């Protein structure tokens, strides 16, 4: 490598006073100022090229890819949320439908039970009235039968008493006194 360092300083190289410490280096390449101009020119060219590539192409492309992915994720999450909301709404609708159906069924059940009860009550009442009427008729028949029987008993008793008296005494008793005696004994 050329040892002729420090002979000529470029304008840019002269800006770095700390770099000039290389004069004592005696061939230490980083402090050889004869190379500075070449390095600075190539650095300027390549760094500007890199900057243009990075700012115009690379960052928009990679940033766009990241953003597109983020948008896709956000969109998918929103879609999933929407579907979840829909299924929640469907579930809620189903539940309310079920509840109303159940209450309707209960109402129908209550109604039909009430109707059946009322009908049963009405039938029972009618039957009871019928039975009561029959009972009353029967009681009347019994009462009339008994009255008839009782009047028959008096006649039979009077006849029997007259016969008994006739057999015992041989005298035919007076019908009025026999009747009076029978009445008295029936009463007694």
């Amino acid at each position, binding site marked *: *490598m050329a040892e002729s360092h420090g002979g*000529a300083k*470029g304008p*840019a*190289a002269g*800006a*770095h006073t*700390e*770099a000039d410490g290389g004069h004592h280096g005696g*061939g*230490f*390449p*980083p*402090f*050889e100022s004869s*190379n*500075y*101009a*070449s*390095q*600075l*020119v*190539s*650095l*300027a060219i*390549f*760094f500007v*090229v*890199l*900057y243009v*590539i*990075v*700012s115009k*192409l*690379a*960052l928009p*492309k*990679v*940033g*766009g*890819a*990241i953003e*597109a*992915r983020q948008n*896709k994720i956000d969109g998918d999450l929103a879609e999933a949320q929407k579907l979840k909301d829909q299924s929640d709404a469907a579930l809620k609708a189903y539940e309310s439908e079920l509840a109303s159906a159940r209450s309707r069924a209960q109402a129908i059940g209550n109604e039909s039970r009430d109707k059946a009860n009322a009908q049963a009550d009405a039938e029972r009442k009618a039957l009871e009235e019928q039975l009561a009427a029959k009972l009353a008729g029967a009681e009347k028949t019994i009462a009339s039968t008994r009255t008839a029987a009782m009047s028959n008993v008096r006649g039979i008793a009077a006849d029997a008493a007259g016969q008994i008296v006739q057999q015992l005494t041989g005298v035919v008793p007076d019908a009025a006194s026999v009747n009076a005696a029978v009445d008295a004994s029936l009463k007694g």
Partner: protein
Amino acid sequence: MKIDPIHQFNIEPLFTLGHIGNHTIAFTNSSLYMLVAVAVISILMLASGTQLVPGRLQSVAEISYEFVASTIRSTAGAEGMKFFPLIFSLFMFICVSNLVGIIPYTFTVSSHLIVTAALALLVFFTVLIYGVAKNGLKFFSIFVPHGVPGYILPLVMFIEVLSFFLRPVSHSVRLFANMLAGHIALKVFAGFVAMLGFSLGALGWVGGVLPLALTVALYALEILVAFLQAYVFAILTCIYLNDAIHPGH
């Protein structure tokens, strides 16, 4: 077997491009590796697809993008995204050229102070020009910290101004020195292995195991340093730009 750890930093002109004044402008091995870095970055960023589910190359491109973007947002705020192309270019250029340069027999662009100084001055003047253009004279309030008692304010201002103008120095020397020292150390340790093997025979082969292990360990460290120094350069750029964007802090 002579070890020359400096040889790897030599600039070899490949062909002459032209002359500026009495300077010969040559396309050198340094230029070649700058071209390689630009080509690698372009292929990485442009040849990777834009698929919904990224492949490997696209993942690397997107991770680089997100990494630099989040670094800017966390240090310089959303306004710093104006400088995204610049910081991305700086980070990728330094990172790729460092990583390419760690391959044996290649050249490391950032092992030359002139290159790192040019990049640091680019950042310095971007900060200065943007800061003054955006904030006017208010930009210089970065030299006057809040809450400092009046009697030591001149001293503090002097230190602030000095540190501001020394920024490009520390910014460039940090990268340059790290790359230079790392490559020299690698070369020296790797050279020990060869030297022991050539000079001491069988004993040397056994003795070479230790420097070889060290070389391997150093190599891994240098891969980390190659990435880390690019990151440090980029994050310092963000911090300096933050001064230009928000000089009140």
